[in-house]
């Protein structure tokens, strides 16, 4: 390439990327859509960044993808919720440190008319059995996300084969699933935080809550620097330590949507 053209191209690229290039102290966080969509990260990250002095760049995807991104070394730290997958990730040596951070709880939502008559119940398994034979539709994530893994466990325990015209495997995110359940006047398993943002738009009610089986633990994982070069492990450790510190845990508990606490600190 002609040197002046090369320089021009370089300048253009620098201009284009000026706002987005990664500084050395920046931390790349791969996390689930639930932490991003609920607004938790918008609440936590400025507090952490003020302490740390660098930026956290968020990649919000499903837990499965977040772990894949960590496996490839394309993120420095992960905040995810799928314990069995996390354990596999650690056992394979892709993570150097894993800590419990918090949990949130899941709920069964459905139409006001509640054709399956599950309103007010506490037993999620009994409720799912009823829904499967109610004639109403159940909308599933169907995307191998943490939420979908949890749902599949429930169907197994209920002894229900999750298939047929009543079972809608949408292959989409939590927000779209709630929208779809609203359109179909059907049921869905959702985390409370996402539901809070979609309650008015979908007209769905909380019908089943409080079953300990629907508590969902989040963990923070520092991607193993022994597997990849160029990771910001110092920043990743700082983030993991801050999340599990007294200050980080208090910030998690303080985060509220419409006056309701969404995530419960669980660091030991």
């Amino acid at each position, binding site marked *: 390439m002609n040197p002046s053209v090369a320089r021009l191209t370089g300048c253009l690229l620098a201009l284009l990327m000026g706002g987005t290039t990664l500084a050395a102290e920046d931390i790349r966080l791969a996390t689930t859509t639930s932490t991003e969509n609920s607004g938790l990260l918008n609440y936590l990250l400025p507090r952490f960044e003020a302490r740390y002095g660098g930026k956290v760049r968020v990649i919000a995807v499903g837990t*499965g*993808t977040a772990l894949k991104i960590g496996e490839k070394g394309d993120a420095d730290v992960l905040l995810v919720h799928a314990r069995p997958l996390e354990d596999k990730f650690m056992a394979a040596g892709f993570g150097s440190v894993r800590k419990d951070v918090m949990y949130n709880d899941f709920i069964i939502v459905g139409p006001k008319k509640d054709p399956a008559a599950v309103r007010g119940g506490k037993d999620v398994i009994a409720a799912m059995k009823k829904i499967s034979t109610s004639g109403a539709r159940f909308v599933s994530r169907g995307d191998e*996300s943490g939420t979908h893994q949890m749902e599949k466990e429930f169907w197994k325990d209920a002894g229900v084969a999750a298939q047929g015209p009543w079972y809608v495997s949408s*292959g989409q995110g939590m927000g*779209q699933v709630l929208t779809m359940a609203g*359109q*179909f006047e059907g049921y869905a398993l959702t985390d409370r935080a996402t539901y809070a943002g979609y309650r008015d738009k979908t007209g769905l009610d909380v019908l089943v809550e409080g079953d300990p089986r629907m508590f969902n633990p989040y963990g923070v994982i520092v991607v193993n620097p022994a597997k990849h070069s160029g990771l910001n492990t110092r920043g990743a450790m700082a983030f993991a330590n801050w999340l599990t510190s007294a200050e980080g845990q208090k910030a998690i508990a303080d985060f509220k949507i419409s006056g309701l606490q969404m995530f419960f600190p669980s660091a030991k």
Partner: protein
Amino acid sequence: MEWFEPTGLAFFLLLTGDADLWRIILTSLICSVIALLLISPAAIALGFLIAKITFPGRRALVVLVQALLSFPTVVVGLVLYMLLSRQGPFGFLKLLFTPEAIIIGYMMIAFPVLVVFTLSAVQGADPRIYETARSLGASPLRSALTTLFEVRFGVMAAVFNGFGRVVSEVGCAIMVGGNIAGLTRNIPTAIALETSKGEFAQGIALGFVLIAVAIGINAALAWLQGRGGLE
């Protein structure tokens, strides 16, 4: 290579008639073909009329239709979504998250492609074809069909382009179809799902399947064209 094995597996499932995979492929093909069959006559007629008739605002109309080619398919999906949702004006039809909704979306996406390509094909044709047909006593409709037959390769190119655009788009299909397994999941939305699951290799494998299907269809049509040229 990481995608090599899943790609092999995908083609194995393809050849052994795996029900789930074929359902996805057939959803893609059936929705695309039906949408093109429904929208092509009107779009080709409009393309012909714009090419042949001069009227005030014609240039503006051409510019508008050409601009629609760059219209993002997710915006088409969004507009259609709002029309078909339960709260929307056509909610009573209960078409949201059905293959029919995808077909309507595909028709809206393919329409400007077909119009623009037909328009340029007809404009490129010798204007004497139409005039000669008229002077020999053919009706305007008959003369129009004669012109379109003379530029049939251009018109077929219009249809190929429309097909290529809808069969490969993901934004509208996922929005109004909902990517429901066994109902509205097609090749591009299945790829989007595999990617979101972190199954990148599976996504690539499905991408190869889409290319193979496209090559098959285009080869068949090219063969037909070749035969047409011999006559």
